[in-house]
Protein backbone atom coordinates (compact mmCIF):
# COMPACT_ATOMS: atom_id res chain seq x y z
CA UNK A 1 0.00 0.00 0.00
CA UNK A 2 1.44 3.36 -1.02
CA UNK A 3 1.84 5.91 1.74
CA UNK A 4 0.79 9.55 1.92
CA UNK A 5 2.53 11.58 -0.78
CA UNK A 6 3.43 15.24 -0.44
CA UNK A 7 5.12 17.74 -2.70
CA UNK A 8 7.26 19.71 -2.85
CA UNK A 9 9.58 18.40 -0.14
CA UNK A 10 11.29 21.76 0.33
CA UNK A 11 10.35 25.33 -0.49
CA UNK A 12 12.12 28.63 0.13
CA UNK A 13 10.22 31.88 -0.49
CA UNK A 14 10.40 35.54 0.43
CA UNK A 15 7.90 36.98 2.88
CA UNK A 16 4.70 38.24 1.30
CA UNK A 17 4.98 35.66 -1.51
CA UNK A 18 2.48 32.86 -1.91
CA UNK A 19 3.08 29.12 -1.77
CA UNK A 20 1.04 25.94 -2.26
CA UNK A 21 1.51 22.42 -0.97
CA UNK A 22 -0.02 19.25 -2.36
CA UNK A 23 -1.05 16.04 -0.61
CA UNK A 24 -2.25 12.69 -1.96
CA UNK A 25 -3.61 10.50 0.86
CA UNK A 26 -3.56 6.73 1.14
CA UNK A 27 -6.15 5.21 -1.18
CA UNK A 28 -9.50 4.78 0.53
CA UNK A 29 -8.72 7.14 3.42
CA UNK A 30 -11.66 9.49 3.79
CA UNK A 31 -10.17 11.75 6.47
CA UNK A 32 -7.29 14.07 5.66
CA UNK A 33 -5.39 16.36 8.03
CA UNK A 34 -2.96 19.22 7.53
CA UNK A 35 -0.59 19.99 10.39
CA UNK A 36 2.02 22.66 11.00
CA UNK A 37 5.11 21.55 12.90
CA UNK A 38 7.45 24.26 14.10
CA UNK A 39 10.97 23.15 15.00
CA UNK A 40 11.06 21.56 18.45
CA UNK A 41 7.29 21.30 18.76
CA UNK A 42 4.64 18.69 18.11
CA UNK A 43 2.34 18.91 15.08
CA UNK A 44 -0.47 21.44 15.36
CA UNK A 45 -3.69 20.73 13.47
CA UNK A 46 -4.56 23.32 10.83
CA UNK A 47 -7.52 21.69 9.11
CA UNK A 48 -9.34 18.36 9.02
CA UNK A 49 -11.37 17.11 6.05
CA UNK A 50 -13.87 14.29 5.90
CA UNK A 51 -14.15 13.43 2.21
CA UNK A 52 -14.32 16.92 0.65
CA UNK A 53 -16.00 18.64 3.60
CA UNK A 54 -14.24 20.59 6.35
CA UNK A 55 -14.66 19.07 9.83
CA UNK A 56 -12.39 21.39 11.81
CA UNK A 57 -10.49 24.50 10.71
CA UNK A 58 -10.57 26.34 14.03
CA UNK A 59 -6.78 26.80 14.11
CA UNK A 60 -6.32 27.74 10.46
CA UNK A 61 -5.27 31.41 10.08
CA UNK A 62 -7.95 32.10 7.52
CA UNK A 63 -6.67 35.56 6.63
CA UNK A 64 -3.69 33.95 4.91
CA UNK A 65 -4.16 30.19 4.81
CA UNK A 66 -6.63 28.27 2.66
CA UNK A 67 -7.12 24.60 1.91
CA UNK A 68 -9.31 22.54 -0.34
CA UNK A 69 -9.93 18.91 -1.05
CA UNK A 70 -11.68 18.59 -4.35
CA UNK A 71 -13.33 15.25 -5.15
CA UNK A 72 -12.46 13.98 -1.67
CA UNK A 73 -8.99 12.75 -2.62
CA UNK A 74 -6.03 15.13 -3.15
CA UNK A 75 -5.70 18.29 -1.15
CA UNK A 76 -3.84 21.57 -1.46
CA UNK A 77 -2.85 24.00 1.30
CA UNK A 78 -2.02 27.57 0.30
CA UNK A 79 -0.42 30.45 2.16
CA UNK A 80 -0.85 33.96 0.79
CA UNK A 81 0.93 36.14 1.78
CA UNK A 82 3.58 34.24 3.75
CA UNK A 83 5.11 35.60 6.96
CA UNK A 84 8.41 34.77 8.60
CA UNK A 85 6.62 32.84 11.35
CA UNK A 86 5.14 30.46 8.76
CA UNK A 87 8.54 28.77 8.48
CA UNK A 88 7.76 25.21 9.53
CA UNK A 89 7.19 21.70 8.24
CA UNK A 90 3.71 21.15 6.82
CA UNK A 91 2.55 17.61 7.34
CA UNK A 92 -0.35 15.86 5.68
CA UNK A 93 -1.91 12.78 7.27
CA UNK A 94 -4.80 10.52 6.31
CA UNK A 95 -7.04 8.06 8.07
CA UNK A 96 -9.78 5.57 7.27
CA UNK A 97 -13.11 6.12 8.99
CA UNK A 98 -13.30 3.13 11.32
CA UNK A 99 -13.61 4.00 15.00
CA UNK A 100 -10.29 2.37 15.84
CA UNK A 101 -8.36 3.63 12.82
CA UNK A 102 -5.44 5.96 13.34
CA UNK A 103 -3.66 8.35 10.99
CA UNK A 104 -0.58 7.99 8.84
CA UNK A 105 1.72 10.83 7.88
CA UNK A 106 3.44 11.91 4.71
CA UNK A 107 7.10 13.06 4.67
CA UNK A 108 6.16 16.73 5.00
CA UNK A 109 7.07 19.93 3.17
CA UNK A 110 9.73 22.08 4.80
CA UNK A 111 8.95 25.76 4.21
CA UNK A 112 11.48 28.50 4.82
CA UNK A 113 10.27 32.10 4.62
CA UNK A 114 13.05 34.67 4.26
Amino acid sequence: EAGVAQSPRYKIIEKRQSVAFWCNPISGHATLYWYQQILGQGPKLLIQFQNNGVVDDSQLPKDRFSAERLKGVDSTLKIQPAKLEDSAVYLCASRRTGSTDTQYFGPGTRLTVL
Partner: protein
Amino acid sequence: QKEVEQDPGPLSVPEGAIVSLNCTYSNSAFQYFMWYRQYSRKGPELLMYTYSSGNKEDGRFTAQVDKSSKYISLFIRDSQPSDSATYLCALRDNFNKFYFGSGTKLNVKP
Protein backbone atom coordinates in the same frame (compact mmCIF):
# COMPACT_ATOMS: atom_id res chain seq x y z
CA GLN B 1 -3.11 24.28 30.33
CA LYS B 2 -2.05 22.22 27.32
CA GLU B 3 -4.11 19.19 26.40
CA VAL B 4 -1.00 16.99 26.38
CA GLU B 5 2.22 17.51 28.30
CA GLN B 6 5.45 15.79 27.33
CA ASP B 7 8.98 16.30 28.63
CA PRO B 8 11.02 17.60 25.65
CA GLY B 9 14.28 16.08 26.86
CA PRO B 10 16.75 15.59 25.33
CA LEU B 11 17.25 12.16 26.80
CA SER B 12 20.65 10.53 26.32
CA VAL B 13 21.17 6.87 27.21
CA PRO B 14 23.80 4.19 26.49
CA GLU B 15 23.06 1.42 24.04
CA GLY B 16 21.15 -1.44 25.70
CA ALA B 17 19.45 0.76 28.29
CA ILE B 18 15.73 0.69 29.03
CA VAL B 19 14.10 3.96 28.00
CA SER B 20 10.94 5.36 29.54
CA LEU B 21 9.04 8.14 27.77
CA ASN B 22 5.95 9.71 29.30
CA CYS B 23 3.01 12.00 28.64
CA THR B 24 0.21 13.32 30.78
CA TYR B 25 -3.12 14.62 29.55
CA SER B 26 -5.97 16.59 30.98
CA ASN B 27 -9.09 15.51 29.07
CA SER B 28 -10.64 12.25 30.26
CA ALA B 29 -12.56 12.05 26.95
CA PHE B 30 -9.44 10.82 25.14
CA GLN B 31 -9.90 7.17 24.31
CA TYR B 32 -7.18 6.44 21.76
CA PHE B 33 -3.47 6.66 22.46
CA MET B 34 -0.54 6.59 20.08
CA TRP B 35 3.21 6.89 19.97
CA TYR B 36 4.94 8.17 16.86
CA ARG B 37 8.64 8.12 16.08
CA GLN B 38 10.05 10.98 14.02
CA TYR B 39 13.52 10.90 12.54
CA SER B 40 15.15 14.17 11.57
CA ARG B 41 13.63 15.66 8.40
CA LYS B 42 11.03 12.88 8.15
CA GLY B 43 7.31 12.65 8.85
CA PRO B 44 6.09 10.96 12.06
CA GLU B 45 5.88 7.17 11.82
CA LEU B 46 3.27 5.26 13.84
CA LEU B 47 4.95 3.08 16.44
CA MET B 48 2.26 1.98 18.88
CA TYR B 49 -1.51 2.40 19.04
CA THR B 50 -3.85 1.38 21.83
CA TYR B 51 -7.33 2.24 23.02
CA SER B 52 -7.50 0.57 26.40
CA SER B 53 -5.83 0.86 29.75
CA GLY B 54 -2.98 -1.52 30.41
CA ASN B 55 0.03 -2.63 28.46
CA LYS B 56 0.57 -3.39 24.79
CA GLU B 57 3.80 -4.97 23.66
CA ASP B 58 5.39 -5.05 20.21
CA GLY B 59 8.93 -6.37 20.07
CA ARG B 60 11.18 -4.12 22.14
CA PHE B 61 8.39 -1.55 22.61
CA THR B 62 5.71 -1.50 25.31
CA ALA B 63 2.98 1.12 25.47
CA GLN B 64 1.28 1.63 28.81
CA VAL B 65 -1.92 3.56 29.45
CA ASP B 66 -3.30 4.54 32.85
CA LYS B 67 -6.61 6.31 32.21
CA SER B 68 -7.30 6.88 35.90
CA SER B 69 -4.09 8.90 36.23
CA LYS B 70 -4.25 10.30 32.67
CA TYR B 71 -0.75 9.06 32.07
CA ILE B 72 0.76 7.20 29.12
CA SER B 73 4.22 5.71 28.73
CA LEU B 74 6.40 4.12 26.11
CA PHE B 75 9.15 1.74 27.17
CA ILE B 76 11.99 0.74 24.86
CA ARG B 77 14.01 -2.30 25.90
CA ASP B 78 17.56 -2.96 24.74
CA SER B 79 17.73 0.48 23.11
CA GLN B 80 19.74 0.78 19.90
CA PRO B 81 21.44 3.77 18.22
CA SER B 82 18.81 3.42 15.48
CA ASP B 83 16.18 4.32 18.10
CA SER B 84 17.64 7.84 18.25
CA ALA B 85 14.74 10.05 17.18
CA THR B 86 12.02 12.28 18.55
CA TYR B 87 9.10 10.42 20.10
CA LEU B 88 5.66 12.03 19.99
CA CYS B 89 2.69 10.94 22.04
CA ALA B 90 -0.71 11.57 20.49
CA LEU B 91 -4.26 11.25 21.74
CA ARG B 92 -7.48 11.16 19.75
CA ASP B 93 -10.85 12.43 20.85
CA ASN B 94 -14.27 11.20 19.78
CA PHE B 95 -14.34 13.74 16.93
CA ASN B 96 -11.28 12.08 15.37
CA LYS B 97 -9.13 15.07 16.26
CA PHE B 98 -5.55 14.32 17.32
CA TYR B 99 -3.58 16.15 20.00
CA PHE B 100 0.18 15.83 20.12
CA GLY B 101 2.78 16.25 22.81
CA SER B 102 5.78 18.43 22.04
CA GLY B 103 8.01 15.39 21.54
CA THR B 104 10.95 13.91 23.48
CA LYS B 105 14.29 13.80 21.69
CA LEU B 106 16.12 10.54 22.43
CA ASN B 107 19.80 9.88 21.74
CA VAL B 108 21.11 6.34 22.19
CA LYS B 109 24.89 6.33 22.37
CA PRO B 110 26.83 3.33 20.98
